[in-house]
């Protein structure tokens, strides 16, 4: 959704290559914000995954249907609650966390629904962003963040450091992290190192939540709650 090019079948996209490397073959994957289904298609073809998608735009969902993908129109902030716990091996949220209303809740939902989550985001701590803010005193506009502040969909930007802090706060373990720099191969990094917070343009995390208290599997099918306030009995 940000500055990454969307041409071709996506196989050349570095973030997609990195996700393909991380996902084990034959697993169940939910991609939130799957667009026209390019990554899901790649995952199905190259990794034999059983993929599902969620996408906010009807055009995107229609394109996914034509690819034969199972995709539901929905909003990450609202509709993740519809999925049962631990229904997937991976939940993928690519370049979207900074666009949701409640990133903390969404992150928790990802790790309720899936064993592991793969999350990528632009790093607001990158030196070019910092330099732009320092020298111009205006909200930075870079290749990763091309829109002015008043029209950007990125309402919850964070730095690499901010994200690792949130993970620690939620008891989320970072199993792997890669820096994605423009047009360069993905570079494995230790996100807790301050220098990476200056160097990485984008980062891609593989995370899990090993110690979380789990609800029993698949409780989501509970009947609709009976209405507490009976309008007509008053």
């Amino acid at each position: 959704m940000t500055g990454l090019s969307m041409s071709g079948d996506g196989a050349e996209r570095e973030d997609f290559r990195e996700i393909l490397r991380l996902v084990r073959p034959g697993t169940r994957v939910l991609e939130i914000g799957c667009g026209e289904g390019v990554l899901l298609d790649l995952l199905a073809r190259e990794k034999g995954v059983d993929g599902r998608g969620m996408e906010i735009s009807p055009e995107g969902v229609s394109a996914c249907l034509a690819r034969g993908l199972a995709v539901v129109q929905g909003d990450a902030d609202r509709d993740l609650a519809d999925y049962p716990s631990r229904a997937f091996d991976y939940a993928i949220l690519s370049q979207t966390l900074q666009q949701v209303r409640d990133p903390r809740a969404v992150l928790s939902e990802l790790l309720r629904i899936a064993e592991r989550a793969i999350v990528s985001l632009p790093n607001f701590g990158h030196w070019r962003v910092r330099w732009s803010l320092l020298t111009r005193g205006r909200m930075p506009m870079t290749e990763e963040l091309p829109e002015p502040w008043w029209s950007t969909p990125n309402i919850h930007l964070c730095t690499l450091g901010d994200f690792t802090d949130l993970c620690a706060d939620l008891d989320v373990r970072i199993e792997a992290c890669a820096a994605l720099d423009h047009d360069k191969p993905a570079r494995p990094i230790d996100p807790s190192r301050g220098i990476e917070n200056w160097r990485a343009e984008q980062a891609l995390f593989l995370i899990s939540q090993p110690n979380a208290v789990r609800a029993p599997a698949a409780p989501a099918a509970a009947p609709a709650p009976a209405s507490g306030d009976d309008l007509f009995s008053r």
Partner: protein
Amino acid sequence: MSRDTGAEQLVGTDGGLLRFGPDQPLRLDSRAVLNGLEIAYRTYGTLNADRSNAVLVCHALTLDQHAAGENPATGKPGWWSKVIGPGLALDPAKHFIVCSNVVGGCMGTTGPSSVNLETGRVYGLTFPVITIADMVRAQAMLIDALGIETLFAVVGGSMGGMQVLQWAADYPDRVFSAICIASAPRHSAQNIAFHEVGRQAVMADPDWRGGDYASQGARPEKGLAVARMAAHITYLSEAALQRKFGRELQRDGLSWSFDADFQVESYLRHQGASFVDRFDANSYLYITRAMDYFDLAEAHGGVLANAFAKARHVRFCVLSFTSDWLYPTTESRSIVKALNAAAARVSFVEIESDKGHDAFLLDEPVMHGALQGFVDSAAQARGLR
């Protein structure tokens, strides 16, 4: 075409009437039994050699088996001519498409206006109350008689969508893909309320004669027309009505009477009047009742996901329309949620339209595109050409 099911094919190869013998009664949810069931149906296209390309199209409340081609009763094109046809989502060149009139209907399938073979009299209100599951059970008998084991797709909008869900719940092994459009997993209080208005309008007509109008040579046309007028409003949206009619008058100036001054009044009166020509009042009572009784979760411990527990292999497509307030998107979302909870394979699109509930019958390119994409990819997965 018919196997040794004992069913008797009465007309034609592209449909007609199928009559089941006394050895094949239709057992209803009410525990009543219908003997001598007749099913009126139409087919489009050819069943392929391995019988894998059959599509069952399920019709809505007041529609019929004439989904495409010309409707012989009205002379108009079938109600889903924009979906069924050469190059369209359901293509007779690729699919064997079957559409049958529901049990309880009045277009040839056994219903309250049929003659009860045991008494020699028109059923009227002695016809047993039927359910959506009964309609589906009758369809399964038809599909058996046509020699079809598994349906490539079951498709329907509104009440047709309810039948689609019922198929997935009752015959999951016989369904490869299921498309449920502008529908709901149960009737809401508002749905039941509107239907009750319609039924009361019919029953308030003195010519209804306690349901026995057929044998008394009467027709409750006024009551049925009012029922249709009220129902028709629920199929549209405020925006669509406003766009089409606004406050436009039929003639210059007001009549200062209760004539149809406004175009919208005239339109509704026309809808009511033309409806009574083609529909039976008692069928209207029975079919609306079947819809009101529909609650798919209830039969599965109150948990909708349980209804789909054996349908995980089915490819589901759920579609809704933004301006449909009769079966709003929240209803479709509850279906999707249950399918997700059952770990079924579901796709869902909410289509932007201001045409209300009836959008599924109208020219909606986004719906047609979604249907085409879904059907084509399912056909590929099914190994159809």
